[in-house]
């Protein structure tokens, strides 16, 4: 009963729910250093393997191409801890604010 006034007050308030996936997408405000999907700048990479060493979830695998060792990312395993972004000495890895990524097969979530 103590809450009855609060309940009446809320009859005239706007709803708190954001109708997210279908409407009101613009209402979602993400902070600037949100940890979302990884972005990888292959041309900056120097192949030091530090990201591979700190990754907790075996997202990163080191492969060899004509420039030397380069990582590939299995993003379906990523836990968004951003330790790779932090340790990268040349800023080749970046966390974007993109949080909506799914794929119908694992090739779509592979980042090279």
């Amino acid at each position, binding site marked *: 009963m103590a*809450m009855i006034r609060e309940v009446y007050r809320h009859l005239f308030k706007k709803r708190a729910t954001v109708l997210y996936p279908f409407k009101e997408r613009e209402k979602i405000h993400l902070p600037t250093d949100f940890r979302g999907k990884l972005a990888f700048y292959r041309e900056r990479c120097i192949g030091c393997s530090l990201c591979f*060493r*700190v990754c907790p979830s075996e997202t990163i695998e080191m492969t060899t191409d004509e420039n030397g060792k380069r990582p590939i990312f299995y993003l379906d395993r990523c*836990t968004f801890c951003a330790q790779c972004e932090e340790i990268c000495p040349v800023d080749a890895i970046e966390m974007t604010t993109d949080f909506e990524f799914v794929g119908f097969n694992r090739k779509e979530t592979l980042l090279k």
Partner: protein
Amino acid sequence: MSTFSIPIGPQHPALKEPESFTLTVDGEDVVGAKVRIGYAHKGIEKLMESKTYIQNIPLVERICGICNVAHTVCYTQNVEYLYEKSIPRRAEYIRVIIEELNRIHSHLLWLGIVGHEVGFDTLFMYVWRDREVVMDLIELLTGNRVSTAMNTVGGVRRDITPDKMTPLRKGMSILEERTKYYRKIALDEPTVLARAKGVGVLTPIEAIKLSAVGPTLRASGIKADVRMDDPYAAHDEVPFNVITYDSCDVFGRIIVRIDETLESIGMVQYCLDNMPSGPIRVRLTNTPPVGESVSRVEAPRGEDIHYVRSNGTERPARYKVRAPTLGNLPAVLEMLTSKGDYTIRIADIPVVVAGIDPCMCCMDRSIRFIDPSKEKEWVWSWNQLKKYAARR
């Protein structure tokens, strides 16, 4: 007098997590309770032995989603104890801020759940709406709503810049006002009083005997808090009161948690005003020296204990986690047993179990003993373990 035994769980609508309770009932009264744990064993400790110290931080964070900061603070300071290094003062303040924000979010979550369990869903809806304020603040500071990934061995990973302080201060004042309102509701609302007063009684003597921890212990009138008794991070400087309440029941636990939320809001405001400047992190080598250490942290649910043994390599040789819910389970069995004047009804079970803020999945580590030399393995009950410990 005939009694029935009713099994509840491991899968049951009243429990959100897989746990099995066997309750002996006489009519509507519960006269005995047993718990069987181990349904959510995740193998985290073994997995930690195969990963490096820095790879283990996100893993430790996932022991418990809700009190993730308490676990990472405990883990990182445990490893720092191995190095015998202290971290910059600013990093310690940031740790306290994040930890207290986490406590606010956890306690508000629990208050909503208790509202739901006592059949007062209006409270649940409003509390969880206001909890979004603190979730947004955690997201602003750390980049994620729940998994903060803020602590690392040697300090914290992100600084709190001045432009983040304004929304943080504003959010704290909104939360303070709302939490005070919920305190008034809890004290006045007959629904809460009828379902929570005199339910789940745990006397102070029993609480100490059964080694209850956290708000469950403090609601029995015992003044025990790791932040006060054994200060870690910046808790030696940040002033706060240890909240106790002497009603020893679920109602006391509600009041203790609401007041602790208010204390946490005050601590965050103090930290923002008095945070020293300087670096936020020291770099440490990959391999800590040989040794072992134990660290204690006051998680939202109670005392969290971590143990690490290092053999000088970059991976821990042994890691052990005692999550707070394990300390509270013997106490909940005591609360679920009618004795003398105190009777507990079947209908009160959900609110009593929810009253300790159970987090079964972070607790499940079975006490299974393996003797490799004799190729023998056995499981011990709590009593057998105590007898064994007394004999030694």
